[in-house]
């Protein structure tokens, strides 16, 4: 019951991890609360402690470091959307943040919460994946680094241990490349993505695809990079037929991973369609 939940608010990472090492399994970290409060209210959440992570300085901030572009797990979606650094080095992440929820949600929701919640339709997942992001976790045994796609085990199942926190994300910066993030929702805003996609790409001197990272969201248990599509397109000059074949491959791969379900009737053509739209600017610019 709601009043049985106890609230703690550590002011450093050390303090937080200390608390988690004692009480981790009965504790839920609280960042923006835009997912957590819903499950608290519905009674789904049975945690004894709610640990507010908003006063932990180590979880904050956006900076270019020697390791790459570092984004604190406690950074809000609004902060990312308005960051000049992100705009320059990870514009595809920025784009996903601009279409995320509503202004109110963006002001509260954090990127760490988005990943830890492990929704298949988490909007920041595909951009982080195409940036080959490393999630930095901290726990009683110290720091652990995992590729961001490994942060989720399945729909709403996190691989972040109950005694761990996500501290930050390290993205491979990508400046000047073609990028796009698209999502389909049941309405124009404030809608969970039915299908989403992120891409980073670059043409070589011949005008063929020299570099490409493609991630499909909302269609598989965990958003995933589809290497088959990347491999197929690499080295090819993009035209409508090639892109259509890429879309077909993406849909095929989705069905391979998720199996055929009632939603596949829509998602199969929608993935193909959205893929065409995703890469169309690269075709058109020839």
């Amino acid at each position, binding site marked *: 019951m709601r009043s049985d939940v106890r609230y703690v608010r550590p002011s450093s990472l050390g303090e937080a991890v200390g608390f988690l090492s004692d009480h981790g399994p009965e504790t839920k970290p609280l960042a923006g609360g835009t997912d957590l409060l*819903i499950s608290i209210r519905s009674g789904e959440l049975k945690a004894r402690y709610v640990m507010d992570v908003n006063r932990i300085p180590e979880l904050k901030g956006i900076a270019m470091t020697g390791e790459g572009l570092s984004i604190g797990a406690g950074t809000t979606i609004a902060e990312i959307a308005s960051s000049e650094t992100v705009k320059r080095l990870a514009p595809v992440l920025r784009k996903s943040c601009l279409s995320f929820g509503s202004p109110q949600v963006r002001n509260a929701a954090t990127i760490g919460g988005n990943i830890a919640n492990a929704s298949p339709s988490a909007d920041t997942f595909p951009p982080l994946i195409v940036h080959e992001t490393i999630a930095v976790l901290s726990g009683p045994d110290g720091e652990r680094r995992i590729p961001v796609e490994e942060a989720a085990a399945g729909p709403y199942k996190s691989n972040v241990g109950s005694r761990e926190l996500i501290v930050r994300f390290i993205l491979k910066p990508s400046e000047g490349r073609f990028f796009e993030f698209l999502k389909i929702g049941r309405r124009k805003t404030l809608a969970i993505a039915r299908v989403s996609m992120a891409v980073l790409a670059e043409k070589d001197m011949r005008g063929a695809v020299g570099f490409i990272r493609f991630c499909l969201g909302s269609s598989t248990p965990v958003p995933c990079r589809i290497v088959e599509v990347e491999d197929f397109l690499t080295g090819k000059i993009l035209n409508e037929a090639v892109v259509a074949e890429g879309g077909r491959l993406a849909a095929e791969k989705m069905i391979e991973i998720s199996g055929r379900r009632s939603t596949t009737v829509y998602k199969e053509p929608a993935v193909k369609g959205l893929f065409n739209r995703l890469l169309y600017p690269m075709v058109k610019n020839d």
Partner: protein
Amino acid sequence: MTEKVGAIGSSIPRRGALDRLTGASMFSADFRLENPLALRAVRSPHSHARVLRIDTEEASRMPGVARIFTARDIPGKNLTGIINKDRPLLVEDKVRFVGDPVALVAAETEEAAERAAGAVNVLYEVLPAVYDPADALANEAPLIHEKGNLLFRRRVVRGDAASAFSSCAVVVEETYRTSFLEHCYLEPDAGAGWVDADGTLVIIASTQNPHYDHSEVAALLGVEDGRIRIIQAATGGGFGSKLDLNMQGFIGLALYHLQRPVRCVYSREETFIATSKRHALIMEMKTGAGKDGRLHAMKCRILCDTGAYGSYGIAVASRAAVHAGGPYEIEHVDTEVLCVYTNNPVAGAMRGFGTPQVAFAHESQMDLLAEKLGMDPFEIRRRNALRVGSVTATGQKLEASVGIGECLDAIKESYEKARSARSDRGDSPFTCRGVGIGAMWYGIGNTGMQNPSTAQVEIDLDGAVTLYTGCADIGQGSTTVLAQIAAGTLGLAPDEIRMIVADTKLTTNAGATSASRQTYISGNAVRDAAAKLVDVLLTEAVDLMKVPKNSLAVEGGFVVYKGDTDRRIAFSKLAARARRKGIPLRWQGYFDPVTSPLNPDTGHGEPYATYAYACHLAEVTVDITTGEVTVDRVVAAHDVGRAIHPEGVVGQICGGVAMGVGFALMEEFKPGVTASFKDYHIPTANDMPEVVPLIVESSEPTGPFGAKGVGEPALIPTAPAVLNALSDALGKRIYHLPANLERVLEAANKRG
């Protein structure tokens, strides 16, 4: 009588707008009561089950619990419903839908109430349930109510449709389906109450019909009328759902037994599970026309799923039957609507009472006919549009104010422009554009039923005028409009009229805020009361001024001589004079629209005294690769008779378009699945098209200053227009609402 300039047809600041903006308005949940108990219903998790035992023992002993009520505690008649009484306040024998209340907890806090509600032990014997109205009519179907699963049947027959089809050049026959919808008013249902010093049970409620609430609560409790008082609080929308008794009965029951202040505030989830929905309709429609596009015959069979209880089901079925042909003259009509019980949630009133659903069908049919005839969709509508002198399917001859032709003409230029512009695909190879028209008619007031309104206008000795009306303003602006009508009649400025509104102790019955009836019907009652007072004032002035009554007028708080406006006498003086003579200063107004009951076999009669008309033009862009739809623009022409408050009309139109876009593209309440806004989508500001409202004023002779109504009409043409535009864009039609991503993409992929 002169009209005070500015009173009628002017968009004066809305009554209470500042309070809303500053947060000063008191909604039901805002009342600070002394130590109130919180009420929480225990609701059935089963859609059909016998209640074998309700064990409240353990729950009653939980901390903070004051009492737990069951059906046995209801002292009066445990059966409610505005049209047919079939719904218990608390279920006694069996539950009929998921959400049916079986017990009511009163506790010191919301949390204690919630906890105890979870601890009430109900032993159910689950019964077979039925969720499809066609299945519910089958012989072997589980019986939901003793009298059978068919609640009501309405036929409307004119001419001989069966044989008329053979002489038609073209005939189209299709089946259309719509889904259950949730109203999604901003303010979840809420109420509060206390017992006055004199023993009156006072109930504050978010409601559309305080006088109905009053009689229902009195009957439930078996108390005299005078012991109940319902006061409508500021109400954050209703759209029909707050016409039912939602929490009012719970509050009454608790007050009766506990004599302590109580509150009952629904969560959004509770409004979703417990309150009524828009009826899902299955409509088989066959329409035939001649070579010239003239409609000859229409045959229609409609199944109307009213869910577990009647609520407004009979009204929805009746209205759907009357309106099934659309705003067109059709000589041969054969319509049958069956309103059927199922174990789905209760379907009740929702903006339009079945008309939005049938408009989707008849407007799709019009486009299909036009296509077969090679005729323009505009042209076929213009040719068939009702006009003065037309006879409707119920045999009613329309005498005046038939503005559908004018509405069509009003959008014509925009339509032609849009048609010629739609072929350019814009800048994406993945989209295509379409243009569509939707038209509608809508009878003002209840269908073939007496539905009078009353009002009082009173002048005091210093000349101040007070209007008493039972009419609930739920955000649509009736309080402002009624003040304008009183002011317009009395020659005053609207803000000079004091208003006492929607309080059953102080005001008399104005009927429901539904059926787009308050401007026309209550407006007329107000005008009647005000006109009687004006007559008294003029009569007194005749004696003093020694001029004929018809040379006098009211203006600015004076009776003035029209020949020389400097000759004037203040209202206050005339009021004092009347009082001395024993003439009342408070006058009663009454109006009941002229209607006649519909013949049970043929549907013949005069269901309404007047009709509103409208048509919308929608322009859409469809992404054919993903099924995403953008409604770019809606041009909305509405014949309102006379716009008493033009901004109010525009507000209704814009809100109606928003609701229509939701109905067309995304809204669907799936019983047993949909729980909250998490899985029910209504349009956001970003989904809104540009709206161009066009007010058409085809004056209604029996209306107050010529006015009719617009509340429901605003919504009705949008979805048909959007669906016709989609079909124009895709070359493929969608017959099932909502036209969501899946249905649009499927249609896009099937197109030739």
